[in-house]
């Protein structure tokens, strides 16, 4: 394993020290327990947004803390959900009296830990609503399983709900908006290579020189299917077909197209993927009116990409365009 890190056990703490040193005007880092808040938290009278999850997905979530997006993020160990005490302390630190929204990606660990934290926060008199994001069409949904994973839609939900909270919308309104974004977004990802969890020291899975994994998550899990590596246009079909088949997005719709790098795939390839996605959707009568292209929800150094489509309406578009100032996402200010 070759990585630009120091001690394997210090990866998350060292990273947090880097974030604290790099963005002192935007965020504050708490070390006992680990959480990141915007520098001006708590914002009185504003619904506060708290998210979190395992580390290794940078810039998500810590890089999305700031004006117009998250009030706090709780980083767990690499690929391991954070613990209830982190979420509780972060929730208390950013609560501005208007309630706190927990944006939770649908993984058993994240869900259970946030559940415990929400119970504890309510015990302390803080009004908490939780929305679970589950947009990954690679996983078949079913009553009897853990359901779908939360992936790319999380980034979009955090941006859009963050803007709504800045506007002064109420907790239930922001929570409903979050559910709406989740309901109108679908994602699917693929990998050309695995990634190495620092503490594990070796790649989570091995891929042959001519193989790719389709339907991966963001934790180095193997995907639904292993197949022969294909070119960009074919990969776009393999990912976008299931997304469109799944429902909410149809011909005539305007969408936000989010082409995401898993961490090790460079921008030159993402733009080629975006071009092929643009053509694929155009042929099907779907119009891209907004886009996001880059590494925003990653899986350490994994090579690969994911596509997320969000059906847009005027309200969502306006909230997407609203100013945001975070280390990982910034415009309008």
């Amino acid at each position, binding site marked *: 394993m070759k990585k630009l890190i120091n001690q394997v056990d210090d990866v998350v703490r060292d990273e947090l020290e880097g974030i604290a040193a790099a963005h002192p005007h935007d965020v504050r880092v708490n070390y006992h327990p680990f959480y990141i808040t915007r520098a001006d938290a708590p914002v009185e009278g504003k619904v506060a947004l708290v998210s979190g999850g395992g580390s290794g997905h940078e810039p998500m979530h810590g890089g999305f803390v700031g004006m117009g997006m998250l009030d706090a993020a709780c980083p767990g160990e690499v690929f391991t*959900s954070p613990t209830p005490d982190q979420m509780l302390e972060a929730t208390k630190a950013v609560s501005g009296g208007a309630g706190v929204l927990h944006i939770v990606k649908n993984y*058993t660990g994240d869900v259970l830990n946030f559940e415990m934290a929400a119970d504890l926060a309510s015990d302390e008199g803080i009004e908490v609503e939780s929305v679970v994001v589950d947009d*990954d069409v690679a996983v078949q949904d079913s009553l*009897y*399983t*853990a359901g779908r994973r939360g992936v790319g839609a999380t980034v979009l939900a955090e941006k859009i709900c963050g803007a709504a909270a800045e506007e002064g919308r109420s907790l239930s309104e922001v929570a409903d908006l979050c559910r709406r974004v989740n309901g109108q977004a679908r994602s699917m990802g693929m990998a050309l290579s695995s990634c190495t969890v620092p503490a594990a020291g070796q790649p989570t899975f091995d891929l042959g020189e001519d193989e790719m994994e389709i339907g991966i998550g963001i934790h180095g899990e193997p995907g639904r299917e292993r197949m022969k590596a294909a070119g960009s246009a074919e990969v776009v079909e393999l990912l976008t077909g299931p997304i469109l088949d799944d429902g909410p997005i149809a011909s005539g719709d305007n969408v936000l197209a989010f082409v995401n790098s898993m961490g090790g795939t460079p921008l030159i390839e993402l733009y080629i993927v975006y071009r092929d996605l643009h053509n694929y959707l155009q042929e099907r009568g779907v119009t891209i009116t907004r886009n996001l292209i880059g590494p925003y929800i990653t899986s350490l150094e994994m090579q690969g990409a994911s596509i997320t489509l969000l059906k847009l309406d005027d309200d969502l578009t306006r909230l997407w365009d609203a100013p945001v100032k975070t280390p990982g996402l910034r415009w309008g200010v």
Partner: protein
Amino acid sequence: MESVGLEQVLAWIREIAARVEEQRSYLTQLDSAIGDADHGINMNRGFKAVLERLEATPPADIAGAFRTVAMALIGKVGGASGPLYGTLFMEMGKAAGDRATLDGQGLAEVLRAGIDGVKARGKAAEGDKTMIDVLEPAHAALSAAVASGAGLEEALQKAEAAAKEGMEATIPLVARKGRASYLGERSAGHQDPGATSSHLMVAAASEVWGE
């Protein structure tokens, strides 16, 4: 022995910690196949914290020992196994109440409460390819043996055997809960990491209490 007191409970917890440390890469490797390659790392981080806290503030009774384990796991493990094992010990602590010792009967009752807590939180049933597939048969074997008048050593041996069987029985299963469920059919053919760590706990009990 026919019943265990605080000392034996602490010995059991220390034995679990030692085995987790020793099997951490094995557990992580199992988690690589159908999960995210961190179960051994998570459990080891958790039980290290358990030992520290037991050192720092020695519990007054069995219930206190279980509560300390629960709080350490909930606070340090993260992931799915943290809240689940945390709940297991939390509920075991509540069930232990103010009892100074637990005989076979008592152990079965306490374990029952713990398993019910895990199921309430995780919504998993037997056959979902989780720790439940080890905990349930272990409990069934333990209480059956106790009911038929077997001694603690024999009852724990039966429980360990059932746990082992349940653990190996997870191999062919298609996961319906946890990360492995995302793999669908591809999850079959691999032993569940959490079932393996649960078996580790039962095996540790049968060793340290089995005299």
